[in-house]
């Protein structure tokens, strides 16, 4: 740590030291140091307050914030990677004064209005093109000009419901619009998560600085969506591309926060001119769809036929005016850079006003005069694709600063711009302003200026456009302020808009932003039910494998164990593992330890404990909005335990210990689920999955160890596997005998591990689910379950034999199939990977 930071120096000295060592980049505006060369008042106030904390405390608060981000699962996925990354949080918020914010906000509102009108015109009357305000070729060139939407009339009239502008402060000190996000803007959820963490790290500071709250905006956004729907009390769905989307975390987070139904394309269906959600209670109308998938993928019939993310018929439902979209498919066309060239003129044409926030000076090279101007000042400009994200002809590049091109590249670019100028725009090179960030070199932490981009969000509400007072700020790790592209090495920062007067407490909680506004869970989508159910089944399968492994290793450890080789307990335990594909083949009992390890860790065995844990996590990842963060955390911990290899020198005790640890985590998950999960349909499915899996597994155990050929030793293993050794001993003075053991494992309704107990719970779950039959007749799963429960209740253990036990197993498998047929999606064109794998 730096000397001046370690010493017990208090404010104002520490803040002074930070200030003195801070050097803005020459010629570039800075958020901390104003144009007059002195620190802005609010930054001084902020640093003074920060200086009150001693360095250890400060470090700890920042570390806690980082950890909360990580553990809360605030993450994103980098393209091409399968694992999620935590979103790195900058330790300092971006501060913006109220006066400045008012200007930004007014500019963003003006722009949102303007863009909405442009889009409505281009898909509607087409006056802008007819009047010559916009060349037809600019519109036609955008791949997001979706022709099937031409003539569509959005219910409520808005093409744009949720808009974001990327802005930055230019060299002249004004805020500039760098880009428009009209398709499906991301980042608002991250802004919310950042706020939660930052405000909790510095609660006093947050309060004293009069930071504007975010919650009212989200409430207004929700009202706006509800208002746009045909029915009152509409069902609002957030349409996600799925768990492999880069920003899936954010989508799940927002769905949870706003009380929207998180759906994938397969959850939706078009019928009778309307959109519906497939739920366990049948089709339910989807009134509003907030889409986070690009428009092109919304409808495989009318848009991109390769899409498996969308819903055939969605465009038709839109044309019928029966579903409200946020945003309308096709709204994304204004993201094309070429439009920037026409915005100043369009503002005057449509609104009779100048743009309140200028955008970067842009020339579309499809017009001869503009192209001429670009070619004249080429070396001072940045060239980008007019419509595409990539620079056409230069694979993998977003844009080119002409001054940095080689002569050959420059020549190639000029040639391409001459042949097809319409594919290119020239843009002024903007050097972005900087804001303070922490830089640690060795032990020294100091403030350094770093360029940033701010994404500002606006929502259409019944009272007009409202702007989120804050936003999603990305701070570059490099000091090159021309680097507009901020893909690599960025951190995100909370954005504090500092009110002139104390901010009203909007909610009861101090941070003000972690309040769920409403819970509109409604009916459980079939896909969510499916994933919850399989999450339960996979976890239970892991538990069964762990128990077998434990028994197997214990046998290997027992010096008194009889040395019988054929059909002994070790071989039977091994056979169970092999039948579940937890291990490749039965081996000599002296190798049981190796086999146990393989059944725990080996990902190549697709039925190993680890493989089933991964499958459980995969199922959980697409229902994240329905599981508490604690459960998510524990599943991760279970995987970590099972991934830890014990190595060659592993001893029995090590394997035992690992199994115990894993079993404890599973117990903790079960505890969280039972204690904390709302008793709505989701819980029914999760628990039912566990119960069905457990009853099938228990019957398999009984067949192996309490069949007609069972002996004392085998029965003993069964009691271990079903955790009933102690109960048995306290109830029966004799050693294990067949009928009592069978009774305990299968029929004893007081034993929470018996099959009868599971059948009782399953029947209760099914009774609690909605019925599709209006006649009052029972649906098939419930019929099977009731009969099973009754038969087990009147069964006599002394009459049981191997065949009868096997018959019960088959009836449970039939029940599992009936449950899947009745409640889950039958879209086998998208089978969940790993689901078709021999699990009963």
């Amino acid at each position, binding site marked *: 740590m730096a000397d001046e930071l370690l010493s017990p120096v208090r404010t104002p000295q520490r803040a002074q030291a930070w200030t003195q060592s801070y050097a803005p980049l020459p010629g570039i505006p800075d958020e901390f140091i104003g144009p007059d060369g002195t620190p802005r008042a609010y930054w001084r106030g902020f640093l003074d307050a920060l200086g009150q904390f001693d360095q250890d405390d400060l470090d700890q608060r920042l570390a806690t914030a980082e950890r909360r981000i990580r553990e809360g699962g605030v993450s994103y996925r980098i393209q091409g990677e399968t694992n999620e990354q935590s979103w790195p949080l900058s330790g300092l918020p971006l501060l913006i004064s109220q006066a400045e914010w008012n200007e930004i906000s007014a500019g963003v509102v003006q722009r949102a209005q303007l863009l909405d009108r442009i889009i409505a015109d*281009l898909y509607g009357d*087409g006056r802008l*093109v*007819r009047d*010559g305000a916009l*060349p*037809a*070729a600019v*519109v*036609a*060139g955008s791949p997001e000009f979706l*022709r*099937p939407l*031409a003539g569509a009339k959005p219910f409520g009239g808005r093409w744009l419901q949720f808009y974001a502008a990327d802005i930055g402060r230019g060299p002249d000190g004004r805020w500039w619009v760098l880009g428009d996000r009209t398709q499906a803007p991301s980042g608002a959820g991250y802004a919310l998560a950042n706020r939660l963490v930052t405000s909790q790290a510095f609660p006093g500071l947050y309060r004293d600085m009069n930071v504007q709250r975010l919650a009212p905006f989200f409430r207004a956004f929700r009202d706006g969506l509800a208002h746009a729907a045909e029915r009152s009390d509409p069902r609002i769905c957030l349409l996600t591309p799925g768990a492999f989307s880069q920003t899936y975390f954010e989508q799940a987070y927002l769905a949870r926060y706003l009380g929207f139904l998180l759906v994938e394309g397969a959850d939706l269906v078009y019928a009778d001119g309307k959109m519906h959600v497939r739920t366990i209670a049948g089709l339910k109308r989807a009134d509003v769809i907030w889409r986070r998938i690009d428009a092109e993928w919304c409808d*495989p*019939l*009318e848009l*991109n*036929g390769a899409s498996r993310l969308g819903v*055939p*018929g969605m465009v*038709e439902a839109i044309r019928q005016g029966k579903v409200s979209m946020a945003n309308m498919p096709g709204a994304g066309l204004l993201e094309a850079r070429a439009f920037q060239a026409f915005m100043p003129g369009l503002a005057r044409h449509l609104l009779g006003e100048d743009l309140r926030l200028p955008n970067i000076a842009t020339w579309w090279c*499809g017009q*001869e005069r503009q192209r001429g101007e670009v070619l004249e000042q080429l070396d001072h400009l940045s060239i980008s694709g007019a*419509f595409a994200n990539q620079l*056409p002809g230069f694979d993998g590049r977003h844009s080119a600063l002409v001054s940095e091109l080689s002569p050959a590249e420059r020549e190639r670019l000029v040639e391409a711009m001459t*042949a*097809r100028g*319409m*594919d290119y725009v020239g843009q002024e090179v903007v050097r972005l302003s900087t804001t303070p960030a922490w830089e640690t070199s060795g032990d020294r932490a100091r403030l350094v200026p770093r360029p940033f981009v701010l994404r500002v969000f606006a929502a259409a509400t019944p009272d007009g456009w409202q702007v989120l007072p804050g936003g999603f700020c990305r701070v570059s790790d490099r000091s090159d302020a021309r680097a507009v592209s901020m893909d690599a090495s960025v951190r995100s920062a909370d954005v504090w808009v500092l009110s002139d007067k104390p901010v009203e407490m909007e909610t009861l909680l101090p941070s003000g932003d972690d309040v769920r506004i409403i819970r509109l869970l409604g009916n459980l989508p079939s896909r969510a039910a499916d994933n919850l159910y399989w999450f339960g089944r996979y976890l239970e399968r892991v538990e069964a494998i762990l128990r077998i492994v434990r028994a197997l290793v214990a046998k290997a450890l027992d010096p008194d164990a009889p040395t019988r080789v054929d059909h002994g307990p070790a071989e039977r335990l091994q056979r169970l593992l092999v039948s579940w594909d937890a291990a490749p083949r039965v081996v000599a009992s002296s190798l049981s330890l190796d086999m146990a390890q393989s059944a725990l860790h080996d990902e190549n065995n697709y039925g190993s404990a680890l493989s089933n844990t991964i499958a459980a996590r995969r199922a959980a990842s697409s229902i994240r909005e329905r599981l508490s963060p604690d459960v998510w955390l524990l599943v991760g911990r279970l995987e970590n335990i099972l991934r830890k290899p014990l190595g060659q020198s592993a001893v029995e005790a090590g394997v035992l210990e690992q199994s115990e640890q894993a079993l404890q985590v599973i117990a903790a998950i079960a505890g969280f689920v039972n204690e904390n999960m709302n008793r709505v349909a989701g819980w029914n499915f999760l628990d039912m999955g566990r119960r069905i899996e457990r009853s099938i597994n228990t019957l398999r155990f009984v067949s192996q160890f309490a069949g007609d050929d069972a002996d004392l030793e085998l029965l003993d293993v069964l009691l271990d596997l079903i955790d009933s050794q102690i109960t048995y001993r306290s109830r029966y003075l004799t050693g294990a005998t067949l009928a009592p053991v069978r009774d305990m494992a299968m029929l004893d309704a007081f034993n929470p591990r018996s099959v009868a107990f599971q059948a009782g719970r399953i029947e209760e779950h099914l009774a609690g689910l909605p019925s599709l039959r209006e006649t009052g007749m029972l649906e098939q799963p419930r019929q099977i379950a009731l009969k099973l429960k009754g038969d087990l209740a009147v069964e006599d253990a002394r009459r049981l034999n191997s065949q009868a036990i096997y018959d019960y197993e088959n009836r449970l498998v039939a029940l599992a199939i009936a449950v899947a047929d009745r409640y889950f999606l*039958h*879209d*086998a*064109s998208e*089978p969940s990977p790993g689901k078709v794998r021999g699990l009963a």
Partner: protein
Amino acid sequence: MIYDVTHVTSYEYELPVASADFMLHLTPHEGNGQHVIKTRIEIDPPAMDMQARQDFFGNRTTVLKISRPHQALDIRTVSRIEVERPQVPAAALTRPWETVARDALNAPSLGPQSPVHFLYASRLAYLSTPATQFARASFAPGRPILEAGIELMTRIRDEFRYVPGTTAISTPLDQVFEQRSGVCQDFAHLMIAGLRGLGLSAAYVSGYIRTIPPRGRPRLQGADASHAWVSLWCGAEFGWIGLDPTNALLIGDDHVEVAIGRDYSDVSPVKGVFIGSGRDSLSVSVDVAPVTA
């Protein structure tokens, strides 16, 4: 000339399919030198819900849903069409291609016929340097656009072999270029890509060509299936002119147009999504017979 066109698309599914959604571009459009006397589509098993509409480009589409389980599906379209196209202008009379390119870019309309829609890279006819270079050889500075277009079409016919089965819709243009063979879609996409690379406006046309040639003339390629060719915008005075690079023919009374789009994906005859898990196999048969009065 009057033709009876029968187009049958048959799907067989390995496992029963629960439901299926289709969008069809099977009904020939009206106008541009052709008149549809009658046309109908038969679906087996019958569709629950079948709706006809026009798409953005004025093509006639049919959307249908089959919501009962089925293991085979037939889509049969039968149409009677009268074709009598106007004379194609003399190529030398068309304007220099650079002027036409400029006019296309500056066209002040977003209407369905406007050349602005067909200027840019599209999903299957994306810009490709080899295609552009190939096209450029025919487009000397100042050359009349149709003259250059006809030469390009003829060079494709001469230098590429028509070999069914070596390509699929998803085969990249560059590969078609490399192997110098393909089918009508490939040649159409290739020619479109080359023309657009030069800044010209070119559309994709799906349709049919007569099965049995008139006496004394060779049987044309692409007669037993859907055919495809190119329509080139030749300036405001001449508009769109059809060129068939597979046969090196200007579009005349031997061709029946069905639909026009930016590439195959805009006008694919049968586009479908079904819910089912097995494989599916597809067979298509087309018959175009002149009606003798």
